[in-house]
């Protein structure tokens, strides 16, 4: 039964009541209203046999006055839903509500398990860098605070928290791999800023991996510093070492190499460019070369663009085309391991301008990540 000291006791179990009281306190401090006001405002979205879960930065001990409250309405009785949250203003508090039926939630967890069991790369299937919707949704469900209703009992073979953390671990391992590879190829091509930015990204990706491997909830890229300070402060000094890029006249090569060394040590993965090349290929199927009055252009019909090439670049392109036409490059594109430095630099230039993508022969498997093994120990 709820009391003044424990206002949520009749809604949720004791442990959740403590977490709920804390988020209620925070919202009251920021906005002068509480959880019951939020529940009243979104009551129209509830179906019978539904529960409400709070996730996001405010629920995970982060957040500030301007943070919105991320809420999931879910359960066996939930009808309808959408991939886009429904926005509400409860006073000055913005509340984003995702509505998903229990069957939809279970389907996402099952998809996650399938993806984890497969050796295929993820390729953003659970969310891109810009929109991490499914990654965050799984963590909201697994780690969120039960605001109202009976907790949903998911029919899953494994604990939902383990699935959610494994998904983030592998997603960020694959992002880290690509960032590490690009940082090195950019360095070889003399692209200073691209090299540094990808090296920093690789460090941030490996830190996200470490957090997830420790079983902590995912809160997205922007909260990394505060997250480390709160829950993994042993990793803070590492992050501080690489979070600011050297200025252009400073020693950027030492920075890039140092960052990748840290990534390799923390993950246990061999991130040397030569090693990563073995499983990587550049793909640029849509381009064609057209020569007009002695000037060569690379044409992209899709983007309505023209790029003029010098003689060396034309030679590189012709060699790459011969590789493609003789079937030397299987399944589209060009295997990085088979390219000399000149052709590698050419392909990197295509990638740099959004004309080529990197494809990988396989994903980064969890059993290969040392961070997980250390976390288990």
């Amino acid at each position, binding site marked *: 039964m709820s009391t003044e000291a424990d206002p949520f006791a009749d809604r949720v179990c004791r442990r959740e009541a403590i977490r709920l009281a804390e988020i209620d306190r925070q919202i009251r401090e920021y906005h002068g209203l509480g959880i019951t006001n939020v529940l009243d405002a979104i009551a129209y979205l509830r179906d019978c046999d539904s529960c409400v879960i709070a996730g996001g930065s405010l629920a995970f001990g982060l957040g*500030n*006055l*301007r*943070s919105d409250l991320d809420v999931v309405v879910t359960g066996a009785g939930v009808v309808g839903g959408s*991939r*886009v949250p429904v926005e509400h203003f409860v006073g000055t508090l913005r509340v984003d509500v995702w509505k998903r039926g229990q069957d939809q939630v279970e389907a996402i967890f099952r998809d996650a398990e399938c993806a984890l069991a497969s050796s295929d790369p993820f390729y953003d299937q659970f969310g*891109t*860098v*810009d*929109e991490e*919707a499914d990654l965050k949704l799984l963590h909201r469900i697994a780690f969120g605070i039960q605001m109202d209703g009976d907790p949903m009992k998911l029919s899953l073979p494994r604990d939902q928290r383990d699935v959610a953390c494994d998904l983030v671990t592998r997603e960020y391992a694959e992002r880290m791999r*690509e*960032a590490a590879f*690009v940082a090195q190829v*950019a360095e070889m091509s003399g*692209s200073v*800023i*691209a090299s540094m*930015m*990808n090296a*920093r*990204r690789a460090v941030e990706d490996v830190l996200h991996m470490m957090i997830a491997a420790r079983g902590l909830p995912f809160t997205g*890229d*922007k*909260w*990394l*510093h*505060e997250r480390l*300070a709160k829950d993994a402060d042993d990793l803070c000094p590492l992050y501080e070492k690489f*979070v*600011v*890029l050297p*200025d252009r006249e400073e020693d950027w090569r030492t920075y890039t190499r140092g960052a990748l060394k840290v990534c390799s040590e923390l993950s246990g993965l061999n991130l040397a460019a030569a090693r990563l090349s073995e499983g990587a290929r550049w793909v640029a199927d849509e381009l064609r070369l057209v020569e007009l009055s002695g000037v060569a252009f690379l044409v*992209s019909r*899709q*983007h*309505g*663009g023209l790029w003029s090439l010098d003689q060396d670049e034309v030679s590189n392109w012709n060699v790459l085309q011969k590789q493609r036409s003789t079937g030397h490059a299987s399944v589209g594109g060009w295997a990085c391991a088979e390219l000399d430095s000149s052709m590698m630099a050419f392909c990197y230039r295509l*990638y*740099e*301008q*959004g*004309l080529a*993508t990197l494809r990988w022969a396989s994903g980064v498997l969890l059993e290969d990540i040392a961070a997980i093994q250390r976390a288990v120990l």
Partner: protein
Amino acid sequence: MKQVPIDARRYAWSRGTALWIMGLPLSSHMEDLEGAQRANQHGLARRIGRAVGESCAVVLAVSSYAFRPLPQSNMRGAWALDRIADHELWPGCWALIRGEADSAEIVAARCQELMACVQAVVVEVPDPLSPEGYFPALAMARSWLELLNAVGEPDLLPRRWTQG
């Protein structure tokens, strides 16, 4: 009557992309920055500052020079900085992207200054996250979506918004 001296598709895409970035992501970043500043969350402020610097560089690259396509996210900042190398706003974008270790207040001030300069170059976009800017921003977005449709360009809406 005066012809716009650029291909219609490229014009619609580049200006539309610039306005889209300024409309939603940048407004959201500035809101996050205000929260970080009030709570003295320096790491968050620095991270938001990086996003603002990168977004502003991209906006300048596409709106001033109509470069396309955009590369994927890990290359966007470097790509944009390379293309605006001679622009007077390059140093402001780079300082934020570097993530120089300043206080949340200084990051916020730099972001606001850069945003104001970019808006002066491109156009001022109503803040969709404010009560007074919400509908004007929607109206602007709708106009640009109509132009993109008219010239046969795909719309700029995030794919997830339109998936079933």
